[in-house]
């Protein structure tokens, strides 16, 4: 299988910050709003370089979403920044009415998604956000896997007309995708080709999927690894092409198995090409305090869990 090199662990939120810094220089319509988490979202550079285009809203996320929607009138491209929990569940109706239904060009940028937020615990670890956002008509939903891809996605969404939910996280994880990649919204990336099982992963689980594929290779199982950075619109063609070849699939995400990537893949398969599927995801549960590694292990969100799921699904063919 194709090998990828980790060029050094980095947090995806810093990829967002780096992308925003670049947008500050290249796109004068980009404005940034933050609800008292500038440092956590790595928005300091943008704030310092473009104080007139940075808006500190305070701890008032509902107001932030509304202001962002209003700023699009007059041609601004607002990027809002706060934790994923406060970017979605807390402000669902504001996003629904003032952004999605109103067709506003707002980029909702959400850090600290999932259990890898760590010690702060379940109050802050949202595992339902992908589901909430993908249900909104017209919303583009993206969950990037590493620093480089998050930076590339941040640049790409500025050029995309329409509301976007961009999800990333807190921990330092492997940085392995190309620095100069062309990020194409809605286009899956086949990271490694294989014949026995398809592994479709998003976010932090993509690197785990690559590790799992190596372990499976050692066991004589050939896995195809697909990085689905865009949950919606979903690249159904890439999914179907691969599953028609391998005959089974494992989906992997740091999200509840209800409402996440796995369900989108299952719907695609059931409508077009039914095939056995196993879900690597949280199983309708809240998270808890712990280190990211401990939580990934406890909730079955790592390479080992993907290997087990792949062996299981292969036997169901």
């Amino acid at each position: 299988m194709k090998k990828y090199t980790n060029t050094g662990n980095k947090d995806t939120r810093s990829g967002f910050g780096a992308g925003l810094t670049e947008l500050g220089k290249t796109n004068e319509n980009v404005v940034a709003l933050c609800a008292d988490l500038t440092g956590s979202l790595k928005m300091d550079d943008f704030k310092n370089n473009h104080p007139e285009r940075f808006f500190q809203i305070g701890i008032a996320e509902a107001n932030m979403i509304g202001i962002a929607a209003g700023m699009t009138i007059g041609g601004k491209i607002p990027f809002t920044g706060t934790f994923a929990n406060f970017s979605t569940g807390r402000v669902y109706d504001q996003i629904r009415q003032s952004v999605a239904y109103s067709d506003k060009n707002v980029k909702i940028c959400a850090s600290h998604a999932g259990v890898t937020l760590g010690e702060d615990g379940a109050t802050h670890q949202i595992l339902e956000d992908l589901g909430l956002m993908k249900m909104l008509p017209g919303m583009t939903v993206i969950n990037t896997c590493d620093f480089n891809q998050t930076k590339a996605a941040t640049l790409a969404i500025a050029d995309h007309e329409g509301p976007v939910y961009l999800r990333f996280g807190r921990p330092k994880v492997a940085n392995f995708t190309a620095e100069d990649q062309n990020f194409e919204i809605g286009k899956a990336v086949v990271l490694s080709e294989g014949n026995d099982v398809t592994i479709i992963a998003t976010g932090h689980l993509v690197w785990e999927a690559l590790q799992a594929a190596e372990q499976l290779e050692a066991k004589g199982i050939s896995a195809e690894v697909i990085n689905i950075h865009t949950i919606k619109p979903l690249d159904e063609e890439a999914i179907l092409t691969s599953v028609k070849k391998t005959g089974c699939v494992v989906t992997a995400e740091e999200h509840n198995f209800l409402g996440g990537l796995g369900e989108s893949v299952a719907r695609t398969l059931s409508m077009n090409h039914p095939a056995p599927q196993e879900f690597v995801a949280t199983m309708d549960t809240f998270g808890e305090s712990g280190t990211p590694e401990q939580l990934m292990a406890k909730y079955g969100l790592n390479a080992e869990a993907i290997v087990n799921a792949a062996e299981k699904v292969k036997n169901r063919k």
Partner: protein
Amino acid sequence: MPNTQQLEEFISQVRRDILRQVHKVNSGHPGGSLGCAEFFTALYQEIMEHNSNFNMHGEGEDLFFLSNGHISPVFYSVLARSGYFPVEELSTFRLIDSRLQGHPTTHEGLPGVRIASGSLGQGMSVAIGAALSKKLNKDSRLVYTLHGDGELQEGQNWEAIMYAAGNKVDNLISTIDLNGQQIDGSTENVLPMGDLKAKFEAFGWEVLEIAEGNNILKVIEGLNEAKSRTGKGKPVCILMTTEMGHGVDFMMYSHKWHGVAPNDEQLETALAQNPETLGDY
């Protein structure tokens, strides 16, 4: 001086439009709409610099955001009669395949609407965003909003009120429609909101009052006064007292007509009190 007779004729026709829209589909919100006929007429006929050849970005124009979207009948009537879309289209209010949805939306492309509203409490935040956008674009025009008084029970308003004062959003004029009524009864009975003037002032807003919100000249005078107070470091709030159902005797002094349409006989009585002036659609 505004031409009072012309404005009164416009208002009478707007009231007819409101009544006929809600009657036809036996749904919608006549009470608050009737109470705000003077306000909308003042804004679109006298106060705002605006272009009925609609452009979403509205550069170089004054903008208006309706936060309490349920009074869409008055909004639609005034937009149509100000040239935004054909008045005949008012006959499609709340019908299937219409641009005139129950609550206003941009989603069907109705000219004059810049944000969806209906779920309450979101309009002021949106208006602040538009006002900030104007400042970034060095556009000196103003942003106007309208909110129900009951709507102020939604917490997001107070986030917005705090932000606008703290950040000197002084190109914003937010009017509160003090009709004292909400669905379940009077605001005093549902949730007393205390001294709103003192509250806005405590948050750092410039506050003025229009005691007679159903007197067109007083509304124009109040809005002009509000305009004169913009650009001075504070957002401006107008507390405008209106009578829900104004212009139709049996609809006044009660919350009963918040969301109820008149029947055939009631419509006839109501229309007789508001003569046709500009031609029914």
